[in-house]
């Protein structure tokens, strides 16, 4: 349970950093020293105490600053949160999932009282105390998805299931790794992931779609996805590419340690009970290259993975301009020793 929230920023002066405890729980996504393209989906079950898997929804010590950043993005660009009218039931499903999960996991921060459809939600950390009628949008200050996503870390996408496909018919995205909700809204799963250079050829896309179509209620699944980001900038949207794209040409041997970040997404997927839609929670974690060095096995494994990344994925992840300078900086810290087999985080 976090009671102290760090006053970090994810823009302008970028004061975000991980505490030693936060580094230890960082979901380091590589299970071997070479890169393999895979889905690696597993049941989203409770993990060890203190880990990012301890609770279904992970709230950490960046919560307050994370929510401030989301509010900032939504103020600038309301199109980051959109849903088709037929997704309203799914929005309520999402509100229920998040409120119940958060209240159960962090009772000192969040409280939910339910009496039939009369709900009372208290978010002590953000100073919110609202009574509303479940199912009646006129009793909330925003539509249900926006209301609760403004109080929960992670982006959310609502997928309608029909015709043996999944349709991106709603979502909120303010901390995304270079995809546009506004542009992708209404696409099916294959169209949405249309630009993935390897996924379609290797059958990973088909496998992913089939797995997701079969996700059952009360049996959520998860996977880790990764890319790299310059500065701890949550909002890496195509809309603002002309702001963050500039960073890519500014990496030097002197600033790799603080500027280059491993960006990991914990993607968790739930089947929603009323709508039969899916929700994907995409929760972003950053790790500075300097912070990576504090874990010797990560410092060995990461440059090895980066070296083995196929050229088309280097391009797709947008790291072409700074991969080599990052590798040069990391290489001295890889002493060549073998790394333990499998996952390297608890």
């Amino acid at each position, binding site marked *: 349970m976090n009671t102290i929230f760090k006053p970090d920023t994810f823009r302008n002066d970028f004061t975000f950093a991980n505490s030693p405890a936060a580094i230890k729980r960082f979901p380091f996504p590589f299970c071997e020293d070479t890169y393999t393209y895979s889905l690696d989906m597993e049941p989203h079950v409770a993990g060890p105490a203190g880990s990012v898997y301890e609770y279904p929804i992970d709230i950490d010590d960046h919560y307050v600053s994370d929510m401030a950043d989301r509010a900032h993005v939504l103020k600038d660009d309301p199109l980051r949160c959109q849903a088709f009218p037929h997704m309203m039931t799914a929005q309520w499903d999402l509100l229920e999932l998040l409120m119940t999960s958060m209240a159960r996991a962090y009772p000192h921060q969040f409280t939910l009282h339910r009496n039939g459809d009369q709900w009372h939600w208290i978010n002590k950390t953000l100073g919110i105390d609202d009574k509303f009628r479940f199912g009646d949008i006129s009793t909330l200050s925003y539509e249900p998805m926006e209301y609760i996503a403004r109080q929960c870390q992670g982006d959310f996408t609502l997928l309608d299931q029909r015709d043996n496909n999944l349709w991106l018919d709603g979502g909120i995205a303010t901390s995304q790794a270079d995809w546009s909700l506004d*542009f992708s809204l209404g*696409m099916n799963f294959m169209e949405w992931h*249309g630009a993935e250079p390897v996924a379609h050829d290797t059958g990973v*896309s088909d496998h992913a779609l089939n797995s997701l179509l079969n996700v059952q209620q009360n049996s959520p699944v998860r996977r880790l996805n990764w890319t790299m980001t310059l500065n701890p900038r949550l909002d890496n949207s*195509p809309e603002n590419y002309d702001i963050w794209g*500039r960073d890519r040409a500014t990496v030097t041997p002197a600033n790799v340690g603080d500027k280059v970040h491993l960006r990991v997404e914990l993607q968790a997927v739930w089947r929603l009970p009323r709508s039969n839609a899916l929700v994907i929670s995409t929760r972003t974690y950053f790790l500075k290259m300097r912070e990576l060095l504090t874990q010797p096995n990560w410092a060995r494994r990461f440059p090895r993975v980066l070296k083995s990344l196929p050229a088309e994925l280097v391009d797709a992840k947008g790291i072409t301009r700074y991969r080599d300078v990052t590798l040069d900086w990391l290489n001295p810290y890889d002493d060549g020793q073998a790394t333990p087999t499998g996952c390297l985080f608890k």
Partner: protein
Amino acid sequence: MLVSGNKSRPIYRGLEPDTFAKHNIIVTDGDGCAAVIEMAIAAGDAFSKRCTVLLCTKDLSDHERDESVRALGPATVWFFPTLETLLTRLDGMLRTARMGTRLYASGSEPLIGSTVKTALAHGIDHRSVSTEHRGSNKRRVQCVHCKGMTEDVTSTAVRCAHCGHTLLVHDQYSRRLAAYMGVRADAEVLGETPASIGVFQ
């Protein structure tokens, strides 16, 4: 980047007459009309009598237009000087369309995309629209930054008609917007724009 084989790009399966439809609404342009004529001839007069063709005459001479009408036989043909005027009529038609109406689009991608977009707004499933791409490969491009649309784009880099920045035209396509994504070409290094190649002629 232009990623060939992007799965968001629409697939045009070719015009297929629905001989059971009570009413066929066909949207087309100068190049697409040839495909409509082929379909009409193959399906016969009984089909053509139930067709209303919305023809965008923008790139047609009067003679070509008259030849098209003749070739379409008993179909009802309406002329529109631009795609915009055509879509206004289509929107009005779909508002009062009845069960048993089938929609077709044949011609440039912006024409097909705009037809499908209009259909979506009336609750028509995009997969039920019969489509055939003919003629130009020009694209409709949405600037991801200012959200403005730039029409008739024929090269990989284009100046946004709204914010004025040079956009790189991606292969990602949005059916909802009927447009490809355009992203600032010099976002990473100011002033560094790749050569524009005219691949969408």
